[in-house]
């Protein structure tokens, strides 16, 4: 359905962004393999990026709700 396509596209976008940001942060100079310190950095980076996404989702939803309420108050 449309809904699950949107959710899938959003999950895919989240993985792509995490990949891009964590490669930039953790792999300073690409070598012949991923070193174990690079893998440690990547798994922490992944956790922090998902946490960031959750914080931003919540604060953005809260802001949208506050603005909607504000508009309704202004119409009274």
């Amino acid at each position, binding site marked *: 359905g*449309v*809904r699950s396509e*949107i959710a899938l*596209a*959003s999950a895919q*976008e*989240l993985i792509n*962004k995490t990949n891009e*940001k*964590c490669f930039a*942060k*953790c792999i300073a100079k690409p070598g012949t393999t991923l070193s174990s310190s690079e893998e440690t*950095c990547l798994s*922490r*980076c992944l*956790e*922090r*990026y998902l*946490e*960031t*996404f959750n*914080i*931003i*989702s919540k*604060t*953005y939803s809260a*802001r*949208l709700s506050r603005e909607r309420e504000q508009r309704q108050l202004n119409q009274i």
Partner: protein
Amino acid sequence: MDNVKFDEATQKELATFLEREQAQARINSTVHNLTSMCWDKCVTGTPGSRFARGEESCLLNCVDRFMDTSLFIIKTIESQRPQQS
């Protein structure tokens, strides 16, 4: 599929459904952009097993200050526009 005909009520319901889904897709896209921007601004060190304190408060305030900036810019532009009478 192309030859299926819907009655008017179903068409309206479908239109409402699609509109709501498009709004959701726009919100998702905004959240991804805000996440990327706030990550670059607030998370500047090597990732640890939790956020540094300054990083977390920066993230918690990032969306609201970005939207305040947007409102401030729009208000400033509108206040400088010559008034129509």
